[in-house]
């Protein structure tokens, strides 16, 4: 088990190093000089040169890369070209919205998907299964921004339970913060829940056809007992994979929902920074997202090993 973890850790470090290289150089070769962009096209060449020196853009690329990575390791993400504020501070403010939102949405989607997926699998081919599968079909098909707007219309404008947008901040208390993230979380969670529910169902159905389920029944377990005791844990590998992917998506891919609800999240930060050629912010946010994705994958790998003893002993 320890060797399994060590091997995963090693591959994690290598992935991060490669990712930082790719991110830095791909973004650097994209056209658009931040200094020119900030000063406008009619600016004087010597003014641009001065600004480039001030932003640290005049040293060779490899040195900027080393400075950047060195900064990341010590928590210094550099200074935003546009806002002249530390990137680390900008990101952490946004992260306090995006991370709770992603966790909130993922929790909701898992809470919806597990029972519905298990229910559908245990009633395969019957009316309950058909109903759940029909609902998930709909959940996958509905665009989440439209669903978000419908939620706003119903719960914010008509019923006035929630505010239509914005984030109150955590200083108003945990309850108030969560309350203002509820509609966005639901709009994010529903399509994810639909997908996860289908994965749960098909993974369980695969397991239900396994020989050991028949063995369990021959021991005297009821269909339900066999499903809970022997089916569920064996069906977890594909489900965990999807949960890992969904978390990464929720963290960075919430940009449309952030826009609809006017939330100051990471997605919007990236979007604004790209528009402003604020390369250092883009690089740092992307690197942070890559870091999160790799960490989530690492956690999923560990979860696999917890679920399946064969992975623990395999090297």
């Amino acid at each position, binding site marked *: 088990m320890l060797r399994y973890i060590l091997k995963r850790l090693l591959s994690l470090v290598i992935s991060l190093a490669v990712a930082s290289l790719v991110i830095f150089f791909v973004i650097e070769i994209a056209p658009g000089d931040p200094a020119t962009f900030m000063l406008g096209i009619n600016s004087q060449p010597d003014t641009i040169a001065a600004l480039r020196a001030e932003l640290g853009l005049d040293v060779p690329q490899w040195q900027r890369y080393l400075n950047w990575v060195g900064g990341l390791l010590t928590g210094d993400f550099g200074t935003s070209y546009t806002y002249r504020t530390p990137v680390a501070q900008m990101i952490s403010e946004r992260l306090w919205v995006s991370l709770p939102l992603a966790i909130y949405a993922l929790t909701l989607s898992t809470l919806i998907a597990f029972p519905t997926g298990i229910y559908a699998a245990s009633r395969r081919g019957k009316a309950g299964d058909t109903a759940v599968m029909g609902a998930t079909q709909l959940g996958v098909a509905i665009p989440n921004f439209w669903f978000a707007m419908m939620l706003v219309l119903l719960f914010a404008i008509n019923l006035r339970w929630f505010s239509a947008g914005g984030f109150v901040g955590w200083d108003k208390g945990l309850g108030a913060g969560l309350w203002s993230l509820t509609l966005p979380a639901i709009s994010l969670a529903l399509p994810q829940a639909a997908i996860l529910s289908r994965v749960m169902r098909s993974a369980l159905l695969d397991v239900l056809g396994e020989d050991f389920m028949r063995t369990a*029944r*021959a021991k*005297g*377990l009821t269909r339900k007992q066999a499903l809970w005791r022997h089916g569920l844990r064996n069906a977890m590998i594909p489900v965990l994979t999807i949960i890992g992917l969904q978390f990464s998506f929720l963290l960075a891919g919430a940009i449309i929902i952030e826009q609809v609800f006017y939330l100051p999240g990471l997605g919007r930060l990236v979007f604004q920074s790209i528009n402003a050629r604020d390369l250092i912010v883009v690089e740092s946010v992307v690197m942070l997202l890559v870091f999160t994705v790799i960490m989530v994958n690492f956690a999923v790998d560990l979860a696999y090993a917890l679920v399946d003893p*064969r992975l623990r002993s395999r090297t």
Partner: protein
Amino acid sequence: MSLLSVQKLSMGIHDHPVLHDVTFEVAKGEIVAITGESGSGKSMTAFSVMGLAPGGSHATGRIMLKDTDLLTQTEAQMCALRGNAIGMVFQEPMTALNPVKTIGDQVAETILIHGAGTRAEAMRIAADTLTRVGLPQDRFPLGRFPHELSGGQRQRVVIAMAIALRPALLIADEPTTALDVTTQAQILQLLAKLAREDDMGLLMITHDLAVVSEMADRIVVMQHGRIVEQGDTAHLLHNMQHPYTKLLFAASTHQVDLPPLTSDAPLLRVDGVSRDYRTPRKSVFGAPGTFRAVNNVSFDIKKGERLGLVGESGCGKSTLTRAILGLEDVQAGSITLNGAPVFSAGRANLAVRRNMQVVFQDPYGSFNPRHRVSRLITEPFFLLDDPPKGQDRTDLIAETLEAVGLSAADADKYPHQFSGGQRQRIAIARALIIRPELIVFDEAVSALDVSVRAQILDLLADLCRQYDLTYLFISHDLSVVRTVTDRVLVMQSGQIVEHGPTEQVFSDPQHPYTQTLLAAAPTLPDLTDKASPHAQPPLV
């Protein structure tokens, strides 16, 4: 009074009848074997007794376990009986256990689910039962996971789960079909011992007549969902009445008539071949280890010769086969066909490959289901520089299909339209169509019913006469190898431990391993001595 009494059991799945008027009994401590070929309804009978027949099935008649009619029990009542009064052992030990739970938990579950003890008691009973089935605690602690055990050991765990509560009746559905012959002998002995010790009724489902004849007190022969004959083992075998019973028996001991050898020229030469596999690194930065799957193997096959290769799973048969076919390089030695290497410059040597073809075990998995037979059997044409086209091609397809006992019209059909035996004929046609000099049969008849197997073996003999075939016949089934080969190699742990003319090796084995193999293989009694019907009492 009998323990299990099945009376006029008929069953259908949806509107498709599966069982007709099945009537038989199992007494306490008695071993009854139901035998028959695929589709005979033998497994369905077993599942009906367990109340685990597939959805959409409906049964009539009575299945009396002592005084209880199992067909009238509710699902909850059946759950209380399963694992408690009736235990069941299955065919596939590799998949019959839950991979994520320890063997101790899985055996203890039988006890816990029936409320027969606390968790501590259940674990103690589990440990005792595992010891009883030959998995002592010092070597197989309760915390082991199934993947840490071999197939035979896993089957012992499945048996332990089934007998933990000492059920009155044990049903074993092809319990040894997936196991090696020496393991099979041990498991059969164990089952018989448990039945005798616990005075437990044992209902064995098996297609293997030799196993039946050595093991059972009584035999029930089924065909197409009906019982065609049943009786005491010795009596039934010596006084077979029904033509199907006779046919089954004849097919099981079928002998083919091979034409004599025609040539002495060597065709395939395997010289000092070793094949290593990498094993996982011991530490993160350590060098990977190696496992020698084939160790310094040398032999040759003469033109027109039929060579057998026998050995148990893991002995290196398949690795050797892949090396001979040029699918993988070897680490030492050389393999040549007519003097040309089968593998050169990092890949299979095409000029040699077109002279070798292979027929695999699984007639269902080895065809692309979306291709027609004409396309399937002409696949080896890709190996030719100038494959036949147009009318030549059509003629060759027709000729080859007819040579393997199919018709030219079958060329336009899809594989799912054929039975298992017919598919194996298609596989042989695919191997034959480019007239290779050597055909490798890799367990080619192992998945077939005995009557079909006998036909395929006859076909091989016919093809030998017609096309002067040279083949390497790899099988774990000793009786088949004995009849279709001239010479045989016995392989153990990557090495050839014995080789010689087939008849000589079988009648006078020299190596201890060969002797063990032959002793473990179940055999049908010699029925020529009809004067004494009890000359061959059942084993144990």
